């Protein structure tokens, strides 16, 4: 067992947990968190793919892709959270009416 | 010899972290938990920092470790204060987390 196999399995599991959360849970924040877990799991798999036996340096291209992915996921999270806040406000206004 | 001392310091630091975690899990209320966590973790991190500084190669590394310990202690204390403050206000206002 080498680190890449261990963390590859962990990344796969995190991706699966996130996917299940995104489709099976009802709370909006939790669904969003599930998507975020999916993105981290995908990052794990990409970084494991870039890993080489220690004396050799890893492949930098997947690393750059994952950094891009992290920033894109933050942008998506910020937009989704703004939608969640707005929806919540509208529902609260409906309840009062 | 130096690496032995460093290992002992790091091991002692890890033990303090363990004690803090047990306190977090076992103590009955939030203030006791904070008491266990902030003190034990502050001391644990400082001990680990000392051990790592003994192993560090250059003065620059030692200075960085010292700065990390200082800022971690500062933010740990501030976080503990903020959590306790929030909890006390929550008690005063009735039930709000």
């Amino acid at each position, binding site marked *: 067992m080498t680190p890449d196999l261990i963390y*590859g399995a962990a990344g796969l599991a*995190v991706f*699966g947990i996130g996917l299940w959360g995104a489709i099976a849970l009802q709370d909006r*924040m939790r669904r969003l968190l599930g998507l975020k877990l999916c993105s981290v799991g995908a990052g*794990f798999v990409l970084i494991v793919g870039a890993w080489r036996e220690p004396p050799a340096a890893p492949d930098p291209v997947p*690393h750059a892709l994952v*950094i891009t992915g992290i920033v894109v*996921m933050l942008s998506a999270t910020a937009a989704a959270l703004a939608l969640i806040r707005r929806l919540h406000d509208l529902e609260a206004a409906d309840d009062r009416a | 010899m130096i690496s032995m001392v460093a290992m002992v310091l790091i091991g002692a630091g890890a033990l303090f972290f363990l004690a803090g975690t047990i306190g977090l899990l076992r103590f009955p209320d939030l203030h006791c938990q904070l008491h266990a966590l902030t003190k034990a973790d502050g001391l644990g991190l400082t001990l680990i920092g000392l051990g790592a500084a003994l192993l560090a190669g250059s003065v620059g590394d030692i200075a960085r470790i010292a700065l990390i310990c200082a800022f971690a202690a500062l933010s740990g204390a*501030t976080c503990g204060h903020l959590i306790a403050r929030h909890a006390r206000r929550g008690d005063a206002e009735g*039930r709000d987390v």
Partner: protein
Amino acid sequence: MSEPLFLFDLLLALAVVAIAAAALLVRDAFAMIVLFVVFGLLSALAWVRLAAPDVALAEAAIGTGLTGALLLKTLHHLRARGMAGWEPGAAAPRPVPRAVASLNAGLTLAVVAGLGVAILGSPLRVTGLEIAVAEAMPLSGVDNPVTAVLLNFRAYDTLMEVVVLLAAIIVVWQVERGADAAPAPSLGPIWQGFARLTLPAAAIVGVYLLWAGAEAPGGAFQGGAMLAAIGLMLLLTGLYRPHPDHRATARLLFVLGTVAFAAVALLVAGAGRASFEYPQGHAKTLILLIEGLVTISIAVTLTALFHGREPAALKGELRHDP
């Protein structure tokens, strides 16, 4: 292979998976966010073990720190709106038919199994693009391969990434137009002192991360996230209050990075080269110029994403809208 490190890897991987599951399943929303932050930091640690320190820095600063701040801010907003004991699903816990639940679980398992087969079927640890990158490194103008890929070899991707960030702030401002702000949390005098003490240090670390990105782990995104942390502290201490008059400056800073990035690409292309084929000897200067301006844009955009609502949406002003 050294045994203790193997044990460490195994424990860390187990902890990452367990905390991911716990974060989704825990009842209290605040505990969910705290567990998510722990999860992100542990993933960053795992990525350090996989020799990806640049990615670990980005995940810790952007994927965990700033995302956690955004989640906490949203939770504060939801709880401030009359729903003091806002509980996940407390509003409408619709029961899910058993068949649908098992279908969801089955579909997830099928996707994960397919992914696992695909990963196991692909050749592991074969040479990818690292040889090509290593050969081109002397031409890139920097010494950190990840920075070289981000700002030279695949600069198109990074340009688009900055555009995505720009799109996000436009979406947030449009969605929250006219919404009321949640009352600002009062954090007390100790927090103020902490912020004043930490602000200059955070500024130094942010600029250092940007500068070190040329030869060591770090770069525009990590540095920008650090500087955005300063923006968050300024907002939370009340040292800076967004004002409608600042909108023009803010918009200028949002697009600054994108415009500079695209302008460099166009100017280089105008001299008869490919868009990101920097002229020999000027690569380092151009990359630092782009990185510096992009860092400012990233920091300001991330701060604005945390603040959310466009500062113009004062109630009186809004009523005049048609």
